């Protein structure tokens, strides 16, 4: 089931992240929920980012929505805050140096929502994008 696979990621939202002291500490991308409704944050079942062959499982990612950041496993019991349908959430990937190896980086993102129906483990919606690091903007984290 590839719900919202077409809308899950906009490559233009991918940016390198620079820390306060000027080092590239990773990159971020933005996700639209791969589901046709919003959900409590605890229902994010699977989330990963692959950069080439390097896998960043959810435990290494930071998930930010509505201005608040969450990590795993803490987010697994957050039920009173939601990832609303159509609201972009930011995922930070702590890759040293960000995306800087040219010419093209292949990024794969998998995400699934633990809905009550449709099988025991909903397969993640997987999106693959090719990114040219030279064209990436950067954002500075405070």
């Amino acid at each position, binding site marked *: 089931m*590839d*719900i*919202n*696979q*077409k*809308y*899950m990621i906009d490559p233009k939202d991918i940016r390198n992240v620079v820390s306060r002291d000027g080092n590239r500490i990773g990159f971020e991308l933005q996700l*639209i929920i791969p589901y*046709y*409704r*919003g*959900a*409590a944050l*605890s*229902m994010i*079942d699977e989330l990963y980012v692959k950069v080439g062959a390097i896998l960043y499982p959810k435990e290494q990612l930071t998930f930010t929505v*509505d201005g608040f950041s969450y990590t795993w496993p803490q987010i*697994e*019991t957050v*039920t*009173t*805050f*939601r990832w*609303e*349908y*159509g*609201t972009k959430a930011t995922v930070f990937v702590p890759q040293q140096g960000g995306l800087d190896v040219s010419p093209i980086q292949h990024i794969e993102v998998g995400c699934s929502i*633990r*809905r*009550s*129906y449709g099988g025991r483990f909903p397969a993640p919606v997987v*999106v*693959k994008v090719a990114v040219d690091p030279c064209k990436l903007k950067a954002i500075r984290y405070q």
Partner: protein
Amino acid sequence: MTIRLGVSLYSYQQTYLTGQLDLEGCIRTVVETTGATGIELIYEQMPLERYPDAVYPNITDKGISRWKELMDKYGTTPTCMDSFIDSKLYRGRISTVQEQIQMMEQDLKLASQLGFPCIRVLALVPPEVLEGALPAAEYYGVRMGQEVHPRFALNDEWMLNVAEISRRRNSKYVGLIPDFGIFSKGLPGSQLNLMKIMGENPDIVDFIEVSFKADFSHKEIAAQLRQMGAKEATVIAVERSAFMNRYNNPDLLKDLLDVIMHFHGKFTYMKEDCSEELTINYKDPIRILKEAGWDGYISSEFEGQRAYHGQNCPYEEDEIEQVRRHHVMLNRLLKS
């Protein structure tokens, strides 16, 4: 006693997601393009409020007023609110029956605050949750309709059990909501259309459509497709559809009309001439409803857009046009 028409805003999810319509725009579009006035809402898809004002299932008086203003402004009527009951809220366990009943009560309360006469309960919500929530349904005056959705059938024990709860408890607050997808033969129209878009031989695709309607089995059709040189993906799609696609004889509706409170007018592909849906039998179920004098809404639930939501699919369906065509057909069937 009359069949009325409405639209589930689920039908416009793509237009909403891409920012072309907001909630008000969706309601306005229903009225302007179909003439129908029934509005069905998946609250969690198009909520009236969000953080920091209120987070589902909560809503403030302001949110409630906003909804009522919209209904007044467009002369529309709330028909059904779609509930989910997230039994997998937490990793590692299924929510207890009592927790699911609490979730149902929250949805019943929200539905009543927004003026919905019923809620759609997902097909797999167990009967003990329905029965446990019956006092709340009666308190809030909101009916719980369990959706009869593919792959279920109207005469499955699971569904007949719901009808039996309603009759045994002598309560109209629990019943059924059939989804027209159960009157479909073979693969959905949008999936057939997608095959053509992705390069399958159109004659092969038409063959699949016609063969299912002629009641050939999945195995027979798949075998024939292999001989015809269909793509492997096409053959696999046909084989896999066996699980979901069980055609319900519309006559099965007759003995259940006393517990049926609402219909999901599921469709995925309306022909341009609005004559019919590609694979779903609308004619016979509507004839049966008319003959029985059934009273309630058929609420268009367009799902065809999702077939084209794959990352690399070049096609995008026009939801608004599809729903417009659906209502041309529905109105014709109602009058004939």
